[in-house]
């Protein structure tokens, strides 16, 4: 049995005459923390809205747990929960009532008090259960949103920029919560973000989207490998070093920064390149291999 629990094929949405998302082919496997990465306006929320049946796609299909979203919507969404864009609630009702309402829509009956309180406990809101959501801060609403998503023991949770608008402490808490969900409860998490380092820290697989189009998809490890061989030289003088590197066939993608040079070099040539620089009387302070996806992400999202 294939363990792809979310598959989109050629998914696209056109508004007036421009595409907010186009040809989105996602494959999310059971157990993944799937990072959906892209700058603001890339089409992340639009894709998530289509997957959760809030908007009708212009093209393509969505399959959840093997069920077609358009023909078998109820089965497809039975084990899915999530937050789209910012978490919104019935502000005039308490956190507890909001939990009851959300839960009853999935269960077909009002969820048990014990279950609700346990779930609120996980996100640290049990003490505020009876307070109106109107009085909650953004961070509390975000956590309530996660609690609501967790309430009916879903197998897949879709979180749209869950750390948006949170302070560093809040971001850390949400990240830890996501990690706990996957390790302790075995929930598959689909997480969108415009911050690469956030995805990099928690995701096992990811897709990058920009201007409505998907650029790449794969395991974070593979993508890191594909993007390996970047080396950062902290050295002086910059101009002379750049000229030398530029003259070498084994070096490419040279970029000068304030205090050094970034270049793409196959690791086996690194010693000889260092030698050449030393011979040319460059002062080398450090040489670091760069594995971060940051540059890759920036490169991919700015070039197109």
């Amino acid at each position: 049995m294939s363990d792809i629990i979310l598959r989109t094929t050629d998914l696209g949405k056109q508004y007036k005459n421009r595409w907010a998302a186009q040809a989105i082919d996602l494959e999310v496997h059971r157990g993944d923390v799937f990072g959906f990465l892209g700058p603001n306006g890339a089409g992340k929320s639009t894709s998530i809205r289509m997957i959760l049946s809030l908007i009708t796609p212009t093209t393509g299909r969505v399959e959840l747990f093997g069920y077609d979203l358009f023909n078998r919507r109820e089965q497809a969404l039975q084990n899915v929960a999530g937050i789209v864009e910012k978490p919104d609630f019935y502000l005039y009702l308490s956190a507890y009532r909001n939990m009851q309402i959300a839960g009853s829509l999935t269960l077909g009956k009002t969820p048990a008090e014990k279950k609700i309180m346990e779930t609120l406990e996980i996100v640290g809101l049990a003490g505020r259960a009876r307070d109106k959501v109107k009085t909650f801060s953004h961070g509390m609403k975000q956590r309530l949103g996660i609690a609501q998503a967790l309430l009916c023991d879903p197998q897949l949770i879709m979180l749209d920029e869950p750390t948006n608008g949170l302070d560093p402490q809040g971001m850390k808490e949400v990240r830890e919560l996501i990690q706990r969900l996957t390790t302790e409860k075995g929930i598959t998490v689909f997480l969108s973000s415009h911050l690469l380092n956030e995805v990099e820290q928690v995701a096992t697989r990811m897709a990058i989207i920009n201007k409505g189009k998907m650029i790449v998809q794969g395991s974070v490890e593979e993508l890191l490998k594909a993007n390996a061989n970047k080396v950062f030289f902290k050295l002086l003088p910059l101009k002379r070093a750049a000229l030398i590197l530029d003259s070498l066939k084994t070096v490419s993608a040279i970029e000068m920064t304030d205090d050094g040079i970034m270049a793409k070099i196959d690791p086996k040539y690194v010693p000889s390149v260092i030698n050449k620089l030393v011979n040319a009387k460059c002062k080398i302070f450090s040489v670091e291999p760069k594995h971060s996806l940051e540059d890759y992400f920036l490169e991919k999202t700015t070039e197109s």
Partner: protein
Amino acid sequence: MLNLIYWELFKTYSKWRTYIGFIAVAVLIPIIMWIMWIEGGKFISYQLKTLQSEFLITGNLFNGWVVAQVIMNGLWVHVPTLIALVAGDQLAGEATSGTFRLTLIRPVSRTRILNAKYIATLIYTASLVIVIALLSLGLGRWIFGTGDLIAFDKDGITILPESDLLIRFMFAYALAVWSMFVVASLALFISSFVENAIGPIITTMTVIVIFLIISNLPVESVESIKPWLFTTHMNVWQQAFRDPYDWDKIWNSAAALGINSFIFWGATLWIFKRKDILT
């Protein structure tokens, strides 16, 4: 489904705006009665003095039943606003507050969610009319006492004996609820494609006013559409005070109102099922 309806009712009755209608009638009805207590007594007595000598009328002529009927006559154009206030918010309110993103991603079909909202709205509509009924009959009989009801209409004057009146009033309020269902359906319909809370109220009232004008235009060219407009039938409750009942007219109006409600419900469902949730 019952659970869905329960929570729609819970939401509806947890909102402050739902009580504006109840508060409005709870304030208006005593005021109307107070004015009638001071003014109306004189006015009606003069008219009826002459009658009293010609017919056999038992009890007080200016009584609670009369007052309740006057109130109904006065309110049936204003109550739609109070209904639109709540019904118009049912879909538009959730769109505006972003809570559709919370409910419509769950494994419940939009048809069921809409129907639950519909039923909750109809229950609110009925509850508002019931409160009007209890207030005007209860307070009216307490302040003005009881007696026979003199009903005026195009054909003249009918005297309805007190023994019939409770049934007749219940029938009148039931017909009023039935016609207010059309107003609720219209407001929900507009609520399905408008994304703010004020729009549906204003639009509903505008539609009602325009239709009412058409319904009352003494012009040949609009005669043929009049029977189809719900506003032509909205005063069907007045038929409860005819003696004998004109069943043809009552059935005809009730059917026209029902068809109107059904069409608005169908149109709302059609739009709601296709609606892109962008808020």
